[in-house]
C-alpha cells in the first residue's frame, strides 16, 4: 500500500549528448551512476526541465537504457519541458529523481512480444536487455509510429544483437501501413507467453481490445506502462490516479507513479480510462 521508494534518490548528473534521431525523436544520454545502477525495466525518472519555476514540475521519463554509469532517455520536444531538455548541451547538469515506480516483471522463458506506440519505445531497450540476460531470446518488437522518421531505429532496441523488429506506420511510409495493433493481431498466432506494451493510453486500450477480440487466451504475462500527469512521482500528491478494477471488479483509483506505471493489463479499467479526458497537454 505504501510505495517502495528505497532505491529512489535525487541525483544531478551530467549531460553527455542529446542526439537527434530524425523525425523529432531525441535521445538524451547522461552520466547518472545511481540511476544507472538502480533502474529496473519500466521504471522512470523525474527530470527537472530548466532551472526556472516555469515550468515548475518535473517530467516523468522512462529509463530507456543504462550502460555503465550512464542512462539514456528517448523523447520528443512536445511542450515546454521537453523543449528545454532538447536544448541541453554536453556538460550541462541534469537534475533527476529516480528510479521511481514499478517496472515490468521480467520473465525468464517463453516467447515475448513488445508492443510500442510512438514514444512507447522508451522502456524497451532496458527491458529487452534484461530479458536476454535471463536467457530469453524469442523476442519480437512491434513498433508503430505515425510516420517512418518517427520510428525509433530498430538497431537501438537492443545492442549488440538487434532483436526482430516489425514496424508499422499510420501513413505507410515504412513497414505495415496501419496501426501497430494489426501487427499484433498477426503475432498472436505464435501464442506469445508474455506481452509488454507501452504507448499513449489510448493505444494501450486498443492493444487490450485486439487481444480480447482475438479470442485467444491472454498470455500469462500481460503488462502495460501507462501515463498520467504527475505532480510528484512518488505517491504523495495523489495526482496521477488511473482507473483500475479492484477485488470485486469495481473501479478504484490507483496511482500511476507508485502502483504503476507498469500495471497488469487485466487489471486496468480500459473503458473507464477511455472515458476520461486525455492527459493534460499545454
Amino acid at each position, binding site marked *: 500500500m505504501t510505495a517502495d521508494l528505497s532505491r529512489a534518490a535525487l541525483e544531478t548528473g551530467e549531460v553527455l549528448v542529446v542526439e537527434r534521431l530524425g523525425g523529432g525523436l531525441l535521445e538524451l544520454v547522461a552520466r547518472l551512476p545511481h540511476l544507472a545502477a538502480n533502474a529496473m525495466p519500466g521504471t522512470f525518472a523525474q527530470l527537472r526541465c530548466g532551472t526556472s*519555476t516555469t515550468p515548475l514540475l*518535473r517530467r516523468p521519463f522512462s529509463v530507456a537504457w543504462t550502460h555503465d554509469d550512464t542512462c539514456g532517455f528517448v523523447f520528443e520536444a512536445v511542450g515546454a519541458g521537453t523543449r528545454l531538455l532538447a536544448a541541453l548541451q554536453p556538460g550541462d547538469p541534469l537534475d533527476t529523481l529516480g528510479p521511481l515506480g514499478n517496472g515490468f516483471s521480467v520473465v525468464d522463458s517463453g516467447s515475448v512480444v513488445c508492443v510500442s506506440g510512438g514514444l512507447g519505445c522508451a522502456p524497451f531497450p532496458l527491458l529487452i536487455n534484461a530479458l536476454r540476460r535471463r536467457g530469453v531470446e524469442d523476442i519480437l518488437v512491434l513498433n508503430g509510429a505515425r510516420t517512418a522518421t518517427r520510428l525509433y531505429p530498430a538497431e537501438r532496441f537492443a545492442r549488440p544483437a538487434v532483436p526482430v523488429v516489425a514496424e508499422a506506420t499510420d501513413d505507410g511510409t515504412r513497414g505495415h501501413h496501419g496501426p501497430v495493433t494489426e501487427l499484433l493481431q498477426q503475432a498472436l498466432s505464435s501464442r506469445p507467453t508474455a506481452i509488454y506494451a507501452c504507448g499513449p493510453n489510448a493505444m494501450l486500450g486498443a492493444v487490450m481490445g485486439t487481444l480480447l477480440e482475438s479470442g485467444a487466451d491472454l498470455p500469462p504475462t500481460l503488462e502495460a506502462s501507462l501515463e498520467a500527469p504527475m505532480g510528484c512521482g512518488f505517491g504523495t500528491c495523489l495526482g496521477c490516479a488511473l482507473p483500475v478494477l479492484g477485488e470485486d471488479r469495481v473501479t478504484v483509483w490507483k496511482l500511476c507513479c507508485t502502483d504503476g506505471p507498469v500495471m497488469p493489463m487485466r487489471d486496468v479499467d480500459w473503458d473507464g480510462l477511455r472515458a476520461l479526458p486525455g492527459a493534460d497537454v499545454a
Partner: protein
Amino acid sequence: MTENAPGSVDLGRGLTLPNPVGLASGTAGYGFELEQLIDINRLGALYTKGTTMDARAGNPPPRVAETGGGMLNSIGLQNPGVDSVATTYAPRWTGWSIPIIVNIAGGSVDEYVHCVSVLEPVSEVAGIELNISCPNIAQGLDFGRDPAEAARLVAAVRAVTQRCVIVKLSPNVTDIAAVARAVEDAGADAVSAVNTYIGRKIHRATGRSVLPLGTGGLSGPAIQPLALAAVAAVCAAVHIPVIGVGGIIDAASARDFLIVGACAVQVGTATFVNPETALQVLDGLRVDDY
C-alpha cells in the same frame, strides 16, 4: 546545529514543534513515502493529507495541471478515512520524532467532530489542523468563507479535544482577517494560511477545462506574494500563532512569512519538485534574519 538555527515553536496546548518548518497537508501524504526519501524526523511537523470521516476515493483524473509557476490540483480529498488513520497509520508513526498533525476535512460540523473525537485517544497524533478551505469538494469552502460558520465549527471541535487545534484558512475571501479573528474567538489555538486559490485551466487542444470539476486549487511559487499578503493581514489581526504557507520554494521565500509575523511555515508544492526543499529551508533559516 548552529547557534543561529531556528528553535522550537510553541503552538499552545502542549504542542511544541521542534522547529518552524513543516510539510504542508496534501503534499506529504501520511509521511510514509517521504520518510524513505528524506530525513523526515529533522523537520518541525508533518501535516497529513486531509482526512475525513469515511474513506474517499477522490475525484476522477486528471487531478493535477501545471500553470505558470504553479499547479492546479483537484484531488478531492482521497483518503482512507479517519478510522484507518487511527488504527493502521498511527502505529507506524510510533518512534517518529516529527510531530504528526492530522489535517481534518468534512462536509458538516458533525463529521469534523467525529474525526477529532476518533483521534483524541491516539497518542501518535500531536495536533489537529482543521481544513475549512478545500476548494475541491462540494461544500469544501462553506466554513472557510463565512466567519460565523467557521466559528461555529471551531467551537464544536474545541468542545471535544484538549489537543492543539490549528485552523487552516481559505484565501478565497474578501477579508481573511475577519475569519481569523472569528476562529480565534471561538477557541482555535493557531491558524495556518493559506490553502489553495481557486483557479482554472483550459486544455489548449480540446478547449475544455482540464480538471473534471472545472476549477481546482492553485499552489506553488505563483501564489507566494498573495499568500504573503494574506498571512501579513492575519498576523495583524490575531494574537494566536500563525503558520505561513503558500509558494515557499527556499529559505528566502519562507523567511518572508516569518518576517511578516508567522511563527512557523509549511512547504507544499515545492516538495514535489524537490523532496528535500523543507530540509533546505530549515538549514537556510537563521533566527537573526527575521
